[in-house]
């Protein structure tokens, strides 16, 4: 085989964390610190930071990509995916190691980079295209196609600041979709826009991926998209490559790792997002309204109790079940009120979700949970806990685990009509 199009060799990137808080014992020392502080800050802001404060976002990462391969980069938040893409797209320089890219590179870490709100759609197509590395003649040649794909021809001469967010995203993606690089680096861009537009983007991505000699590095949290697009998956964990192989296996490894996470004590987890104004401390899942019966069963009542650090007014709880393939099965959200919802007095602050009948089919589910207050996210934990659902009966209909099609049961009845 010829030279790989991308070869990454022991690539590493370290960041310096913030300043350590210095403690001073006496007033004299404190005064001295105030005097010395600007100088110390000068040194630490410059290139000579404290070695102790370095954090390796990426370490010892090596892999080769052959021409035409579509490689998915998988990993949890903070695993180093974005840092890797930033190093490969020359936004930031690695601290050690080396990477060689053979071919014209275009990177798409964000949709609409360089869009200027004051400029019209037409002007932004040229500006954005040029920033993405297209030549003027190339943009002119593809202009009609880009406009066509974006579907904003009527507003071409309107400043982009008057566009709806959906329109500007469509226009931005349309420009990006018409790049013709040999190496394309894409980060999570499909996470924007409505479902319809996402489908269009996926279609375009697939088209690009199948193009002649196109090599793609693709980062996404969407396991479905990854499996649909990529032939190979590279799994990163804490800045290192922990698996490199077929996408399906990489996804399984990734989800396996997530299950491990779920067994950690929820209150101690640090890989969470949100303001922290209220936090999830513990989650209990039990059957038949009895906290001692911790095995859930299809068709039986199920209760999910979320212990929170503070039960603030208007706090809402949301949780989502994922199947072993990483696809979302169902999502429950207390901000969507029902007349059956109620509140009650209790010693410990908690939120409870009750189901008369658990309609999940037997199997293992991973659950992401979040606390919100209006638009503000207080806490969001991926893989907050795992749920095992045992075989049972739903409406006295036996659920056979041997013939599983799908993940949920739809309550139903059959009518057999005929001569009695």
């Amino acid at each position, binding site marked *: 085989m010829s030279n790989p199009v991308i070869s990454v060799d022991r690539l590493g990137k370290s960041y310096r964390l913030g300043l350590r808080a210095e403690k001073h014992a006496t007033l004299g020392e404190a005064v001295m610190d105030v005097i010395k502080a600007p100088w110390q800050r000068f040194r630490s802001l410059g290139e000579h930071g404290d070695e102790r404060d370095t954090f390796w976002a990426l370490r010892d990462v090596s892999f080769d990509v052959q021409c035409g391969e579509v490689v998915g980069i998988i990993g949890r938040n903070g695993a180093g995916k974005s840092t890797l893409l930033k190093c490969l797209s020359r*936004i930031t320089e*690695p601290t050690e190691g080396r990477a060689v890219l*053979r071919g*014209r590179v275009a990177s798409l*870490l964000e949709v609409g980079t360089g869009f200027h709100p004051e400029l019209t759609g037409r002007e932004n197509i040229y500006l954005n295209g040029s920033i993405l590395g297209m030549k003027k003649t190339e943009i002119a040649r593809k202009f009609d196609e880009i406009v066509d794909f974006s579907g904003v021809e009527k507003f071409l001469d309107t400043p982009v600041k008057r566009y709806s967010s959906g329109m500007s995203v469509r226009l931005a993606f349309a420009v990006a979709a018409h790049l013709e690089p*040999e190496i394309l680096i894409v980060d999570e861009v499909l996470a924007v826009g409505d479902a319809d537009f996402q489908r269009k983007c996926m279609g375009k991505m697939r088209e690009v991926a199948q193009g002649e000699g196109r090599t793609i590095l693709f980062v996404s949290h969407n396991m479905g998209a990854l499996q649909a697009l990529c032939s190979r998956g590279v799994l990163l964990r804490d800045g290192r490559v922990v698996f490199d192989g077929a996408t399906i296996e990489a996804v399984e490894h990734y989800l396996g790792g997530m299950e491990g996470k779920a067994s950690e004590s929820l209150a101690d987890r640090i890989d969470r997002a949100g303001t922290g104004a209220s936090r999830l401390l513990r989650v209990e899942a039990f059957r038949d309204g009895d906290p001692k019966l911790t095995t859930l069963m299809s068709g039986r009542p199920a209760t999910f109790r979320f212990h929170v650090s503070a039960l603030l007014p208007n706090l809402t709880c949301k949780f989502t079940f994922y199947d072993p393939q990483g696809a979302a099965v169902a999502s429950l959200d207390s901000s969507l009120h029902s007349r059956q919802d109620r509140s009650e007095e209790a010693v410990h602050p908690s939120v409870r979700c009750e189901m008369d009948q658990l309609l999940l089919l037997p199997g293992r589910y991973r659950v992401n949970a979040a606390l919100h207050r209006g638009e503000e996210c207080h806490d969001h934990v991926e893989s907050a806990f795992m749920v095992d659902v045992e075989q049972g009966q739903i409406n006295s209909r036996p659920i056979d685990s041997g013939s599983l099609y799908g993940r949920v049961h739809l309550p139903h009845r059959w009518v057999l009509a005929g001569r009695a």
Partner: protein
Amino acid sequence: MTTNLMNPISPHTPAFDSGAEFELVIQPRRGWIGLDWADLWRQRELLGFLVWRDIKVRYKQTVLGASWAVIQPLFNMVIFTLFFGNLAGFKEDLPAGLPYFIWNFAGLVPWFVISTGIGAGGLSLINQQHLLTKIYFPRLYVPSAVIGGALLDMAISSVVLAGMILAFGVDVAPTAWLVAPLLIPIVLAALGMAYLLSAMTVTYRDVRFIIPFMTQALQYLSFVMIPMVSMTKRLPERLHWIEWPLSLNPAFGLLDGCRSALFGLPWRPANLAISILSSLLLFVGGAMVFRRTERRFADIA
């Protein structure tokens, strides 16, 4: 007469050259880094687009539009003429037939290129952080584009200057064409300032607060409003050497040079030489500091 029906349609030009030509090696670099000329050349169109964007956007949603390019120096001119020309009496030192305000405006026009380099140029990188952290392109183009916009402003106010010269019947010296070559070190100085300050602002945000003072101090130190004759006349002979250290500020010698060329005032070759040299140094030094800090922009922006 033969008509070539098969008019050769321009062959479909590939969007990029064949892969073998691009081998990009990414690895940590230490110390001083030279300019990547090939890279700058390959993306030269982007510089044009960035200049074009700055120009388009700058006067959007203003009532007076591009006339602001002229109003700013004109306003300065009015103040300087009042205080320096009339109150301080510098107008007496200029040859007859050369009004102070025209002499002053002729200095303000190139001065605004340099002051834009310090002000807008110095802030250009932090104002465009979102670009630095999301995509790669030659970062040098961000401050450079600002100077491109300043040159357009200069062209507009030059027309106004020409109009004033005609209207007041001021004699233009035959050496006036020398202004064109003098523009080169002026632009280099402006670029150098923009490179140096924008790179420093990304690392030390303090610079952002220094920039306004700096612009003001340099305006005085560049003698935009004081004719050199006035200085030599009022300063005792033994202090005349002060011209040389003052010439280390490129604007000092260059603004004087421009006005000497335009109005046939006496030249000061030593000052001019020092200023040209220092503008070259500022440009090279600014670019070096910029390149050295560049690789950390995305991490600290």
